[in-house]
Structure formats: C-alpha cells, structure tokens
C-alpha cells in the first residue's frame, strides 16, 4: 500500500513536471506577449525594455531553468496582465470551478445512474430506446450550443434565470445544466452498458436461482458491480469538468479556472497559463489517484487485506 502510494506519488510528480515542461515550451513558441500588454504606440526601445524587465530576452533554457526552479517552490511568477501572483490567481478561481463541477457531476450521476440501470434492465424496450436515443443525441450536441440554447430559452425568452455570472445558487443553474448534459449522456450510456455486462454474468443467474427478486437483484447485486467501472469514468469526467469547462465558463461568465486559462492563453499571460496548467494537471493526477484508491476500496478483488 505504502509502496503503491510512493510509486504513484513519484509518477504524479513526473507527469506534472512533464506537462509543465511541454506547456512551457509550447507557450514560448506561441509568441511574444509584449505587444499585447504595451500600448500600441510603444516604441522599439520600450518594447525591448519590457522584454528585458519580464526576462523574455534571455535564452530559453535560462528562462526554463529559472521557471522550474521557482515553480518547485510554488512560485509561478506574476501574471503579466494583473501582476498578481499567478498561482494565487488560479487558486482564487478554483472554488468557483469546483462548485460548478461538483454540482454538474452530482446532477449527472443522479439522473444517469437510475436511467442507465432502468435502460439496461428493460433492454430493447421503448423506454430503453428512448433513453439510448437521448444519450446519443446528448453526445452529439456541442456544449456551447447547448449553453446558447439554454440562455436563449431561460434567460432571453422566459427571463426566469440569469444568463451568466456567479453569486447566488440561481446563477449556477444554467451552467450546471449545460455541463451536466454531456456527462449525463455519457454516464447513462456507460451505466447501461456496464449493467448489461453485469446482468449477463453468471453470478446474477446464481442470485436469481436463489430466489432473489428483481429489485434487490438490480440495486444490490448488479449495481454494485457496475459502479466499480463507473468510478473510473466519473474520475475522468470530474477532471474534464474541472479543467475542460472553458466553454461553459465563458458562455455563462463563470469566474472559473478554465476561463482564466483561456483568457491567459489569448493574452499570452505565460505565468497564469502555466500555473493553471499546473493546478489542472495536479488535480487530474490527484483525482486519478483517488479514483484508484476508491476503486480498490470498492473492488474487493484488488483490495489489500
């Protein structure tokens, strides 16, 4: 167990390190942020002064070395745009992102698992077909389109929900729905197919043969087996929801990490991009680790005694 944790810890560090390295060089390749920050009328000398000030005129490897040296100490530098501590800016956005992701995830699970279970149980019935149809359509709808549609309906036409911003729980409804939509489709499908898989297993027949009625059979015997693979998927999706909700965050003006990174990308605010990438890679790694641990916990076959 300890072995495993130590191994995963170092693996995680390696992964985060490599991600940072890759993004560092990618960002430098993306161009020079100077023009974006200085006034348009800045002269050549002024530009050079800025580059010098920001350390952009030094050889890449020196910049990289310094960046890594500082990053190890949790110092990603200051945002070029806001001059705030880059890491802090990202951390400040994290709660909003977490809130949204958690809400969306819970919503998705609450809808998807019963739907997937029923769908699998009533395989090939009308209900199943409708459910499967919805999931296929759900996976075909781009997030931003869904977002726009919801804004159009609930904010512009019906005027019952705010179109964006954060603050009250009401503000969260539309972005949560948007984010949950895709996940719900995925989870439903996955639950359904995991359930179908399980329902074909011999041990289900065994349970039936000992007179177990349908409801406990499904809820107790089959679902627990299906939940095990779902955990991995949920972990992956949580990662995606945390880091990949860029579009939803933009459409609904949600002050989260994704939007911050996108903005930083557009303005080539390197320190913020890197800090954001760092946090996301870290979260991913941690979530995956936790998923493995939970997986091992609920799956007695690999649990340590």
């Amino acid at each position, binding site marked *: 167990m300890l072995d495993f944790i130590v191994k995963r810890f170092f693996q995680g560090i390696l992964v985060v390190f490599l991600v940072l390295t890759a993004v560092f060089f990618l960002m430098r390749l993306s161009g020079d942020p100077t023009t974006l920050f200085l006034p348009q009328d800045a002269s050549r000398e002024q530009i050079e002064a800025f580059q010098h000030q920001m350390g952009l005129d030094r050889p890449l490897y020196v910049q990289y070395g310094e960046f890594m040296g500082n990053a190890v100490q949790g110092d990603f530098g200051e945002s070029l745009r806001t001059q705030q501590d880059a890491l802090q800016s990202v951390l400040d956005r994290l709660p909003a992102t977490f809130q949204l992701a958690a809400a969306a995830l819970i919503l998705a699970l609450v809808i998807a698992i019963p739907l997937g279970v029923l769908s699998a149980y009533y395989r090939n019935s009308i209900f199943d077909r409708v459910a499967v149809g919805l999931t296929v359509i759900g996976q075909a709808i781009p997030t931003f389109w869904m977002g726009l549609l919801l804004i159009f309906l609930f904010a512009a036409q019906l005027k019952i929900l705010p179109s964006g911003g954060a603050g009250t729980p009401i503000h969260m409804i539309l972005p949560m729905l948007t984010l949950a939509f895709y996940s719900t489709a995925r989870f439903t499908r996955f639950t359904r197919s995991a359930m179908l898989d399980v329902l074909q297993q011999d*041990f289900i027949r065994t349970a039936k043969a*000992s007179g177990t009625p349908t409801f406990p059979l499904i809820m107790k015997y089959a679902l627990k087996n299906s939940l095990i693979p779902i955990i991995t998927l949920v972990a992956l999706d949580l990662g995606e929801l945390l880091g990949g909700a860029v579009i939803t965050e933009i459409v609904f003006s949600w002050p989260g990490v994704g939007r911050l990174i996108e903005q930083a990308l557009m303005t080539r605010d390197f320190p913020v991009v890197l800090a954001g990438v760092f946090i996301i890679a870290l979260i991913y790694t941690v979530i995956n680790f936790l998923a493995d641990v939970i997986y091992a916990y609920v799956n007695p076959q690999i649990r340590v005694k």
Partner: protein
Amino acid sequence: MAESILEIKDLKIQFQNGKHIVQPIREVSFQIKAGQTVGIVGESGSGKSVTSLAVMGLLPDRISSIPSGEILFDGKELTKLKEKEWRKIRGNEISMIFQEPMTSLNPVFTIGQQLSEPLKRHRQLSNKEQKAAIIKVLKQVGIPRPEQIIHEYPHQLSGGMRQRVMISMALLCEPKLMIADEPTTALDVTIQAQILSLLKKITSKKDRSLMLITHDLGVVAEMCDWVVVMYAGVIVESAEVNELFDRPLHPYTRGLIQSLPSNNERKSKLYAIQGQVPKPEQVKQGCIFANRCPLAMEKCFQESPPAFQEDGHLSKCWLQSSDEGVVR
C-alpha cells in the same frame, strides 16, 4: 413411478434472436423420482443447460419461450408460473449448482452475504440464526474455518472451495431437487473427485433428488441412478445406469461408450463417431443422428423415430422398431 419429483413432458424451447428462431430443445421428456440422481449426458450444445434453466425458470426473458410441453414439479406445472411464484420455488424447492464456480459468485460480496440470500428470501431467520445455518452447511460441505470464510470474498477462495460454496448455497434451504450443471468440468481431477464424493454423500443422505448434467460418461457411471442421453435437443436414450452401460441401445450412446479410451485397447485406434453435432438450425427431417450413424438406414433420413420403450429403457432409434428387431 408415483413419487416423481420432476416430470418433463414433451418440452420444446425456442429462442428468437431478431428474426432468427432456433429450437435447441425439441422433444424432451423424462422424470426424476424422489431420491434419485439422474444424469443428463450429451455433447456440447445438445441442450442440457437450456433444459435445466427451463426447470429453474431462468431462461432469458423475452427472447426465449416454451411453445409446448410441461414441467411438473411436485405435481405443479411450472411453465406457466408467474415470476413471483417462481421466486418461492427457486433456491427453496429447487436449487442449482452452476458449471463455473469462478464466475458464479458475485465478486463484490462476501461469501456470507451471498449465502444469506436464499435464507433471507425463503426463511424468516434472525441474523444469528442465519449465520448459524450458513456455518452449518459450510461445515457440511467440508469447508474449513467457515467462521472466517463467510467474511471472505470469492476471489480469495480456490476453485474447489468456491464450488463447495455453490453447493452449500444450493443446500441451504433443503430443496427437494438440486440441479448441478457440469459441476466438475472446470475443476482439476483431484478436486473433481473431492466434489463428486461430496455430492454423493449429500444425495445419499435423506432422499434428495439430483439432476446431474455432464458430458462425461465416467461421471455418470460414478454418480447416477438413471441416465438420460441427449443429442441435439432430443432425448435419444434413457435408462437405468447399469442397464445403459450394459446394453446401450442407441448407436449414439453406444458410440459414446465405445469411444472412451478405457474401452479401447491401448495404442489402438479409438472408436470414433464420425462427423460432428449439428447446430440447432441445421437439423433436418429424419433422425437427427442419421448423418453420423454407422447403421443408418433409408428410413432414418426420412422419418424421425418415436421413443421405443422396453422395461423403462427408452431409445429413439428405428433399430428398435419391431420389424427390424432389436440389435444385440
């Protein structure tokens, strides 16, 4: 004859996969008397498992149906039962041991949890009583340290142990009939011997009936009182066990017995039945075995033979018809 615990009459079972209809069970009739161990032998795909599932009411929903025939259990017609009524029977009056001990237990529940299931469904017992009852059967099937085992998960047990757990589960509610579908095929020889002797011990006590499904004639010879030989969804021969081995009537049964290596001289060519078992959709008119039968006659290809019977020894072969005379 009177106390047959299970009687199957002219059972037909069909599966429908989309527009495809197959009938893997076409004519099956046999009975099991109280206290008897009846062996059902036949090669892969002959319909042994499907038959047993029909007796348990576990044929897959929607895609399977029983177009005709009856299954009488203790005088009760089972084919028309509702799911609720089935539940009272399953695990309680009829129980089943499956072929694959590795996959027949739920990997995420402890042995104890799984064993308590039939008790929960069919007996009103306190937790303590449940535990006591479980430990008792576990001891009965020869599982060491049952108090510990009930807290373990299936994957922590070996194949033999798991099969014992399956057997104990089948025994828990003292059913009138047990069905064992190839309970030892997946096991090693030495473990197989353990399990067979256990089953023997169990059936010899009280009068438990056992329907033992196998493809191994040796197991039949070892275990059974009565034998039913199936071939491609049809019962071709059925007889008392000694009678069957001494005087097999159907060429298929004869072939099976003759091809046992121990019935052949060492290093000589084994007796072999030519060809292979037809799939359910390949069945043509006439005797189903005709195309592989060394004694096949014209008639065999045209008309399927009825069940000829002689002192309870049944055989579905034209050779038994009076005008041809009984061979041997």
